[in-house]
């Protein structure tokens, strides 16, 4: 079309089509701009990794970021009702460090991972969802989990939110 394809010159005096509307600087859809959010897939159920996940979630919440925590596999096992009270599992490769780390945490009055998460929810927007597939495999319902877990969702819900999050992590 003349005037636009740079190949067909417009004949003299021709009425050129109007220029397209200038692009708006505001994003057309939510997907164009990253959301102020951290998405974490929590696959692990050992206290070392639960602690790391909880610190990241708490830090993000303290900084005013939304946090989505998506529990799956061993993450769901760790959130079964009351499980956190007796969970002393540590990653297999470092299990010999488990007792000394637990003792150091206690000596320095460090909050537990569950305490961190409760604190994070108190000061920020932290949503915790459980993977429906794992729930199905273990024969669990939402009431079998700690009340801190908000809902059961699937991978598509997680991906839809995570694609817009500025930070996504797999723990």
């Amino acid at each position: 079309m003349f005037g636009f394809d740079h190949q067909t010159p417009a004949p003299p005096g021709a009425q050129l089509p109007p220029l397209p509307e200038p692009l708006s600087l505001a994003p057309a859809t939510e997907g164009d701009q990253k959301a102020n959010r951290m998405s974490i897939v929590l696959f692990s159920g050992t206290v070392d990794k639960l602690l790391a996940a909880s610190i990241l979630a708490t830090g993000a919440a303290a900084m005013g970021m939304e946090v989505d925590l998506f529990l799956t596999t061993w993450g769901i096992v760790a959130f079964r009702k009351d499980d956190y009270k007796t969970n002393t599992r540590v990653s297999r490769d470092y299990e010999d460090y488990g007792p000394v780390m637990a003792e150091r945490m206690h000596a320095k009055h460090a909050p537990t991972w569950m305490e961190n998460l409760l604190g994070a929810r108190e000061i920020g927007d932290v949503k915790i969802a459980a993977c429906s597939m794992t729930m199905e495999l273990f024969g669990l319902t939402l009431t079998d989990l700690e009340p801190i877990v908000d809902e059961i969702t699937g991978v598509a819900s997680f991906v839809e939110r995570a694609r817009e999050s500025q930070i996504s992590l797999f723990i």
Partner: protein
Amino acid sequence: MTPTIHITRFVDAKGQMCPMPVLTLARAIKELAPGQVLALAATDQGARRDIPAWAERTGNALLDIGEEAGVLTFTIRKSA
């Protein structure tokens, strides 16, 4: 002569380890009215970087960082 800043609240986060200093700060700042100032004392080594990052991200003003005998004191004014 530097003007003295009136500190509305002193927050003691000494002995707290990451993530507690920023969490304590986030909790405390909620209780302030815009324009009020709090001072946070921390011994956590990570706080040196964490508190300024927190202030940057949340839009609150970090007025001063003091250091004495291993204790960092952050003076923060709450924005709107």
